[in-house]
């Protein structure tokens, strides 16, 4: 039951009771919510509230009514009279019999807060009075009220610049705001810092680098009144400015270049985002534009182009969404997605808005005006977007070239027609006759297996040295464990690297050396098709031959021609160095022979002269006839290719009788499959189907008519496809389906392809590309359909993801091509080994009818024609010479393409409404919410462009406040709001709220120019103060007036950041390479940095590049930088803190990098010229500190040189290196005063 106490509430809130030092009721209530209620809740409510299991002393402290009424010992609070209030007495611990809380004395500050609150009349907001024993009353989430009551939601004020007594001090309004507060507190600013101190401060703050001696000199020699402005403008114009400020932003977006977790897989192209930041800060990109580009750079109609290279800059900013950690093989992919999105929203909301929106993932925010619906409204933007690696295409060269190529192709295709009147039948009959004739004349082939048996594995591994566990202890006789049955074994035993621990184990067999005596080595091989599961031949220590299986556990005959190595010593090595799927090799029957292991059906080649003569006499094109003959001779025996069909037919026409049945069976299977599956997409139209998206130039629809392509291997384009072969093999592109719900066990794609990959992306999980564990069959990469169309299926683990949301992605990364015919869903597998159209045509027909059938089909069926074309069996003169010329011209443009350059970005996906996950559980779906902005900031619905616009809308008071506060934080050591990432009720209050709003409005008034605000701050008198307190201020007075320097009565002393220390050392030693941009320099690895995913170590000095260009591998972060508080990149971190630990001293004393730089510095100076020791000492000291050494310091440094020289026994560079080392260790170097 809840009693309301309207009268009391009216009195409390509206009765104008706020007294004491509070300006108004709102301020007093804010104070209550910030300072009083949380203490009551935390320290008292377990015993003294309606929530308590047992209310102690009959006292409740959860409503003013209870406080006034009191408990067993009487009223707790007497409003307006702190001294008469028992609450204060108990808290102050002065009465031995009344000390609360019982186990912990509250700090004097907290007690003082209570006093203030009581003196002000103990204001308490209107709310129901909780009654003990009633635990049913849920706390009502009142967004509107929270919005009304918390300072940071209120609109930006345009504060008046306060009047101050010390009129000569302020340079700008900033100083007036600061001075007004100092004067009110009866304080005064510190003396101005001396020129050198100020110069060093501003150099490090703006560029992260120390001033050079030349820069010091120039500044000191400048006597103009604008000398400081000159320095600041110079620094703001320096490219080092962007490097320094980009790094601050990188802390917020948890920038890293690997995904962390077990294998620390790479985040490719992350550095393009880093370079974007550097350029953006250097160009002083207006901050509102900067924010819009981050949120929706991919959707901008008129994106910003890079000034020099003319690529789309805006889209690069969206990369920040995807720089998070990521794990492989999550057992719950939806939970994994929810965690990712929480991180993405955390980064977005803290970085731009200073809000902890992710706190509302499980419940309405505990304190702030942010609901769970707000949180899930934002996840909708992520559900409706897709991570994509897109071609940057500087200058649009690739786009323009593609357009020219398409135009040329269109013109070539206008001339394209199906060839009528070409006698393919004649090519067929002449070639078969020639081959048959050659076969009749050829001697019987030698038995390829009759030579010297090297090993048939029937007698153990005696001939081999076994390493690792993969091959077991001895040859095996069949499949091992989960291995599929093995076909094609000769004899009983064979070598099988599945024998150890299946695909996971590694190992090798190395033969004893032998001499190669025969021209061929024949063998049977099967297993994985990796270079790391192979049989290798080593001659003279070099690998000269290698063979692998074809991802089948059927042993197939293979042969190496070894004539060139005859007489040489060699070794055979069987390797299995592969852990993933098909991580094994099987080998049997190694025989040295005089003949290659010809497969059944192979026939002798017809000699070239005979072919040429026949071509001339029959009026055929010699080259084409040659390919017809070779096709038959080299036929092979797998039965489905034209060559094998014809070669078997040539050997024995009866042997292909079964082919007709096979074709009929296949057709029936195909019919069954089509009937039992659902068509998802056929690409039969001229336009991209709804919801599908393309990026890059590679993919295009092939339309409704056949035509030419630019891929030489299959130069005919078939209608009704989407193909990346049309423009040849050098363009890249991504084709993405709309998001759909998986409702079948398998997804089948009929395609032809080579290279690239295709995948099903479930719940935005994109890591299967590295490791398919738990996602087997959902990704296919580096496949090669050998020029044929076939069904490739997403199967295996896909069925586990029924009911999940997913999209399909087809990626052509440049080399290779993908042509997608259609996509079907079914629960059954798709037919394999589709008969070749050529075989399908001939097999059911009597031989005498072949020629007319072939001629008829080739002039009407583009599929058959294309298949003949892909095999090189079509004479060129069947097409218009003009068309061929135009196509060739288009193809030649391929060679003019610049190398690809990719970036990680966001792309538009399928718009979706998110469902609220009740209590954060993805298993418990709540209401559906459309994508929209936070309700407390208007809640406008729309796409990401709307979200971007709302984020920087002038009515939104947070974005501008948050960014100016960040600038202040980086320049002044602490933000006006110290909790820089949290402007919510759990954050801290602004020390100078009016100044904060003045800075925010001033930023907007100056077109969001960050350089403007930075300039204003660093040219202020506030910033120019010394770090020593004004000597006129009494220390004892100061201890109460401004003990924490909240009012900025002096500049704080600040330690240099990790980057500034490292960059400063490089700059001073002369080793700094000022180059901008580019791929990162690998992290230098120490002995202490081991673990999975370790990369090769980079150079000790990071190649002299600035720290911002050093790689950031999540699992191998630089220990030196981490010691100095570089944050680990997992969440937004606007305030690094500055720890002070012995490990920092150890690093500077003993880290080889620091010592090495000292040596380089000394060596350089000694080589540079003749200086007196004293002059060199002065020069070094000034380089390191920007100050001149006083005589005492000079003497100490000189004495040190002498001492070191005494110990070394001679004066040489070592003593100077030691001196340099000391200068890097001194606090004057490490701190900014």
């Amino acid at each position, binding site marked *: 039951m809840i009693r309301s106490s309207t009268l009391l509430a009216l009195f409390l809130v509206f009765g104008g009771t706020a007294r004491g030092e509070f300006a108004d009721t709102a301020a007093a209530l804010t104070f209550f919510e910030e300072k009083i209620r949380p203490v009551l809740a935390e320290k008292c409510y377990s015993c003294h509230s309606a929530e308590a299991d047992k209310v102690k002393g009959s006292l409740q402290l959860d409503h003013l009514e209870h406080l006034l009424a009191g408990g067993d010992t009487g009223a707790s609070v007497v409003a307006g009279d702190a001294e008469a209030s028992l609450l204060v007495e108990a808290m102050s611990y002065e009465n031995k019999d009344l000390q609360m809380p019982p186990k912990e004395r509250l700090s004097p500050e907290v007690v003082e807060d209570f006093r203030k609150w009581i003196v002000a009349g103990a204001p308490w907001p209107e709310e129901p009075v909780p009654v003990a024993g009633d635990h049913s009353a849920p706390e009502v989430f009142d967004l509107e009220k929270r919005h009304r009551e918390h300072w940071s939601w209120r609109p930006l004020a345009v504060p008046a610049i306060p009047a101050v007594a010390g009129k000569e001090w302020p340079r700008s309004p900033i100083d007036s705001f600061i001075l007004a507060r100092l004067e009110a507190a009866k304080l005064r600013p510190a003396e101005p810092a001396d020129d050198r101190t100020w110069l060093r401060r501003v150099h490090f703050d703006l560029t992260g680098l120390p001033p050079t001696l030349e820069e010091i000199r120039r500044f000191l020699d400048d006597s103009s009144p604008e000398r400081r402005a000159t320095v600041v403008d110079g620094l703001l114009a320096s490219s080092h400015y962007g490097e320094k400020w980009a790094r601050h932003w990188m802390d917020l977006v948890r920038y890293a270049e690997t995904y962390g977790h077990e294998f620390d897989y790479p985040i490719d192209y992350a550095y393009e985002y880093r370079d974007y930041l550097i350029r953006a800060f250097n160009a002083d990109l207006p901050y509102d534009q900067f924010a819009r580009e981050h949120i929706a750079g991919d959707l901008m109609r008129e994106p910003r182009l890079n000034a020099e290279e003319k690529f789309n800059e805006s889209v690069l900013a969206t990369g920040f969404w995807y720089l998070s950690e990521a794990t492989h093989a999550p057992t719950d992919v939806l939970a994994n997605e929810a965690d990712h999105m929480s991180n993405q929203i955390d980064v977005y909301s803290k970085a731009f808005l200073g809000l902890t929106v992710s706190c509302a993932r499980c419940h309405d925010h505990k304190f702030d005006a942010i609901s769970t619906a707000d949180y899930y409204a934002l996840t909708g933007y992520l559900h409706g977007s897709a991570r994509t690696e897109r071609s940057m295409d500087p200058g649009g060269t690739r786009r323009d070239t593609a357009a020219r190529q398409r135009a040329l192709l269109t013109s070539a295709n206008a001339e394209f027609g199906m060839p009528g009147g070409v006698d393919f039948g004649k090519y067929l009959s002449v070639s078969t006759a020639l081959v048959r004739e050659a076969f009749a004349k050829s001697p019987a082939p030698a038995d390829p297996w009759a030579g010297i048996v090297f090993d048939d594995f029937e007698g153990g591994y005696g001939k081999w040295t076994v390493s690792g566990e993969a091959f077991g202890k001895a040859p095996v006789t069949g499949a091992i464990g989960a291995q599929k049955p093995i076909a094609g074994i000769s004899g009983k035993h064979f070598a099988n690297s599945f024998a*150890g621990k299946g695909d996971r184990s590694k190992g090798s067999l190395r033969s004893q050396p032998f001499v190669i005596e025969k021209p061929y080595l024949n063998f049977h091989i099967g297993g994985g098709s990796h270079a790391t599961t192979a049989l290798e031949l080593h001659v003279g220590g070099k690998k000269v031959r290698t063979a692998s299986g074809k991802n089948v556990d059927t042993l197939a005959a293979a042969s190496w021609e070894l004539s060139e190595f005859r007489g040489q010593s060699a070794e055979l090595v069987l390797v299995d160095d592969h852990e993933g799927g098909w991580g094994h090799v099987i080998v049997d029957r190694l025989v040295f022979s005089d003949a290659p292991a010809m497969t059944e059906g192979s026939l002798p080649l017809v000699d070239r002269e005979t072919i040429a003569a026949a071509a001339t006499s029959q009026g055929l094109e010699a080259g084409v006839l040659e390919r017809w003959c070779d096709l038959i001779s080299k036929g092979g025996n797998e039965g489905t290719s034209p060559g094998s069909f014809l070669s078997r037919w040539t050997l024995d026409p009866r042997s292909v009788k079964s082919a007709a049945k096979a074709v009929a069976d296949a057709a029936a299977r195909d019919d069954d499959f089509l009937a039992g599956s659902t068509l998802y997409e056929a690409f039969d139209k001229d336009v991209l189907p709804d919801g599908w998206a393309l990026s890059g130039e590679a993919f295009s629809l092939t339309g409704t008519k056949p035509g030419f392509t630019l891929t030489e291997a299959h130069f005919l384009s078939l209608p009704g496809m989407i193909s990346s072969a049309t423009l040849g093999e050098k363009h890249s592109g991504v084709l993405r389906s709309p998001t759909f719900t998986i409702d079948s066990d398998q997804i089948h794609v009929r395609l032809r392809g080579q290279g690239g990959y295709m995948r099903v992306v479930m719940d935005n999980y994109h890591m299967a590309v590295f490791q398919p564990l738990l996602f087997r069959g959902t990704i296919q990469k580096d496949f090669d359909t050998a020029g044929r169309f076939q069904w490739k299926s997403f199967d295996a683990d896909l069925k586990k993801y029924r009911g999940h949301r997913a999209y399909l992605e087809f990626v052509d990364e440049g080399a290779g091509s993908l042509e997608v015919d259609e996509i079907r869903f079914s629960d059954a597998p798709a037919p394999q080994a589709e008969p070749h159209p050529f075989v399908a045509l001939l097999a059911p027909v009597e031989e005498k009818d072949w020629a007319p059938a072939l001629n008829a089909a080739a002039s009407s069926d583009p599929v058959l024609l294309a298949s003949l074309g892909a095999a090189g069996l079509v004479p060129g003169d069947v097409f218009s010479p003009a068309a061929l010329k135009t196509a060739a011209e288009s193809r030649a443009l391929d060679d003019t393409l610049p190398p690809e350059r990719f970036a990680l970005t966001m792309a538009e996906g399928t718009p979706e409404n998110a469902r609220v996950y009740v209590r954060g559980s993805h298993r418990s779906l709540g209401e559906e919410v459309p994508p929209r902005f936070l309700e407390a900031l208007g809640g406008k619905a729309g796409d990401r462009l709307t979200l971007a616009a709302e984020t920087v809308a002038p009515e939104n008071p947070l974005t501008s406040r948050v960014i100016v506060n960040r600038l202040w934080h980086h320049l002044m050591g602490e933000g006006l709001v110290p909790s820089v990432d949290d402007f919510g009720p759990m954050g801290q209050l602004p020390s100078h709220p009016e100044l904060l709003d003045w800075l925010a409005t001033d930023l907007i008034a100056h077109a969001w120019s960050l350089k403007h605000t930075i300039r204003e701050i660093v040219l202020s008198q506030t910033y120019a103060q010394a770090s020593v307190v004004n000597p006129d201020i009494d220390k004892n007075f100061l201890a109460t007036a401004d003990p924490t320097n909240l009012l900025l009565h002096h500049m704080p002393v600040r330690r240099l950041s990790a980057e500034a220390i490292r960059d400063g050392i490089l700059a001073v030693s002369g080793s700094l390479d000022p180059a901008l941009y580019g791929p990162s320099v690998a992290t230098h690895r120490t002995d202490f940095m081991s673990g999975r995913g370790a990369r090769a170590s980079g150079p000790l000095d990071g190649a002299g590049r600035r720290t911002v260009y050093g790689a950031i591998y999540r699992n191998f972060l630089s220990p030196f930088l981490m010691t100095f508080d570089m944050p680990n990149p997992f969440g937004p971190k606007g305030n690094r803190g500055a720890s002070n630990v012995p490990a920092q001293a150890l690093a500077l004393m003993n880290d080889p990098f620091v010592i090495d730089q000292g040596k380089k510095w000394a060596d350089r100076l000694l080589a540079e010229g003749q200086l007196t020791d004293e002059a060199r000492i002065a020069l070094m000291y000034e380089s390191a500190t920007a100050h001149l050494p006083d005589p005492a310091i000079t003497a100490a440094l000189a004495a040190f040189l002498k001492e070191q020289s005494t110990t070394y026994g001679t004066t040489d560079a070592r003593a100077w290196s030691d001196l340099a080392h000391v200068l890097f260790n001194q606090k004057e170097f490490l701190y900014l005063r």
Partner: protein
Amino acid sequence: MHCHQFHPRQLNRRDMLRRCAMGFGGVAMQALLHDEATASVGISDPLAPKAPHFPAKARNVIFLYMDGGPSQVDTFDYKPLLEKYHGRDPREVIGELAPTQFDNVGKVLKSQWAFKQRGESGAWVSDLFPHLADPEVIDEIAFVKSMTSKFSEHTSANYFLHTGSGLQGRPSMGAWFGYGLGTMNRNLPGFVVLNGGLIPPGGLDCFGSGFLPAAYQGSIFLPREQPIANIKPQESDPRLQTNKLKLIAELDRATYAASGYDPQIEGAIQNYETAFRMQTSVPDLMDLRGEPDSVKKLYGLETDFENTKTFGLQCLLARRLVERGVRFIELTCPTGNGDRWDQHGNLFEGHSRNCKTVDQPIAALIKDLKRTGLLESTLVVWAGEFGRTPFAQGGDGRDHNPFGFTVWMAGGGVKGGVSVGETDEWGYRAVQDRFEMYDLHATMLHLLGVEHTRSTFRFSGRDMRLTDVHGHVIKQIVA
């Protein structure tokens, strides 16, 4: 209520000095210091010892991390039913199975080791742990046979075990102990990882300080002469370094004055003194010349199995670190035992090697801690990130099993000779007194006098703790 905390603006030492209007000075400083051990560091020192929330016996933790996930049904959780149904399809006899990591479910697989009851407590221990089975040791141990994890994949499970969260970048429990209690020896780090050769999947972030200050992160000690980075002076003659430090101190005095006696600079100056001393204290730790041969033998330093020697040395160093007041010591496994404890295949050989590596050293550690009287104040914890399935993966392995597995504790405030919780008759799922990692963490903190709900740190807009919003002390094993 986890969000309901209030932190007034923290006063650091500098603020405190100003507020007290003391300025710098030896006398003033001494007055602020807790004790001699921290005399040179001052009150802003994050590692200064802090009083526990309530009195407790344990002061130090040795965490024996069994990387990869040992099999509960082959070590301490005896399940005779597996023998009866050996070779049967588990889906037929156990019923529906949860998805496994490698999705390759084989037959029910009985343990290949004999189980016996040991000691007065009658604890079941298989023949894999003959030394641990010694009554003098086994009766010190409290088994929790119903531990569970939320993750069946190594990395997330490791983060969960180490940090209470499956995500990367959270503070390790060793860091939380440092945050809650500080350390008792300022010449050594408060959280030391004695690395046997394997860094767990997930990397060094298993030992990180996350959002806590960097001072709390684990320092990796390698069992070798120079165990940590930058501990060895690079100068060829000690006088060269002493001269440098003297000069640095002299220069710093000037800076200190010019900074208006800034306490940060003072702290940094003092860090050089500590660092200088660490250059001695760390090699002293590694110098085993004073250890009697009998002790070295006890730990297995003289066996002929290299991995026992390595782990034995780690255990001996752990005792020496406890003696020196280091708060939290974690031991990781030596390499070369097959793939850690992660026997997806070849279970017999893999587990045999892993047990041979750790059995004698762990038994020796407990005996030695008893001998030196340190066991009372030292909590020893043995745990992997999950257990293994009672059925086979493929032919002769076991897959990950987060649904019920065994961890144990001994020493500091733990009731020896007890066992709590049970898995089902297959050793597959915890069915009685099911515990979570949060409970393990809550119990560890409790044994050192820290109330887990009160040890919080403000980050990301809320008060974070090792146990998140969960955790119950496993009271049955608290003495």
